[in-house]
């Protein structure tokens, strides 16, 4: 499979996430769109890791080139899990104060 197909697919997913962040006002949906963008990048990292592995395995059949990409994906998942717990706690606190999850309530910081 050419690597361009994976790049186009991941770009489409990433752009859908960007459009979601720009068009939705519910803070939880915005947060879910950020997760969508993270997953698009994860899939692209794995595809590039397999691309480098395919290029390196022709010269050395026992190589583990490209394994770093998959480990980066693992660490991105670790950070994303921590980020979601803190982010949802912030959204719950915001809901408790304003009784709404509308992100337009948060523009008071600019004054």
């Amino acid at each position, binding site marked *: 499979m050419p690597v361009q197909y994976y790049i186009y697919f991941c770009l489409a997913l990433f752009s859908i996430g960007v459009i979601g962040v720009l*068009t939705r006002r*519910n803070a939880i949906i915005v947060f*879910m*769109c950020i*997760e969508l963008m993270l997953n698009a990048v994860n*899939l692209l990292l*794995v595809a590039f890791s397999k*691309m480098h592995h395919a290029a390196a395995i022709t010269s050395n059949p026992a190589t583990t080139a490209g394994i770093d990409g998959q480990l980066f994906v693992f660490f991105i998942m*670790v950070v994303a899990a*921590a980020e979601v717990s803190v982010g949802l706690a912030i959204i719950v606190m915001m809901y408790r104060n304003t009784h709404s999850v509308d992100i337009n309530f948060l523009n008071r910081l600019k004054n």
Partner: protein
Amino acid sequence: MSTVQLLFFFLSVLAIFSAVMVLVSKNPVHSVLWLIAVFFAISGHYILLNAQFLAIVNLIVYAGAIMVLFLFVIMLMNLNAESEPRKHLRMKFAGVISGGCFLLVLISLVRQTPELTGKTVMMATGDIGLIKNLGKALFSDYVVPFEISSVLFLSAMVGAVVIGKKD
């Protein structure tokens, strides 16, 4: 067209359709369920790339843990289609236009890149995605970041409790 290619296109269409439905759904609970469908499709992609460990971790961490957390928060707040905040149609239109321009710019960038022509992705073979090889690399080259991530989890746990506490 081989089976792997058919599966690739099927999973891609499924993922993009579900991702669009995440945005279109009025009810936040439906959005979460569509996002779980996206994560299942991406796990299918990982299996096609023979990254079996990441496929299972993606299912357990994202579709299992994170999405359940989202569902709990949405149900705790009793959000539904009626309480959904509305945005002006003009702002929605502007968001879609700017996101589409972003996609077009990136696609034209990829089309012009000479380094990517002729490169193929290894499908359904290769053993760097197996737990044995990933574990060896994780506990030899990446053992310090792995231990630091445990500190990150501890601080995230303490932070979530402190932020979410009443008063």
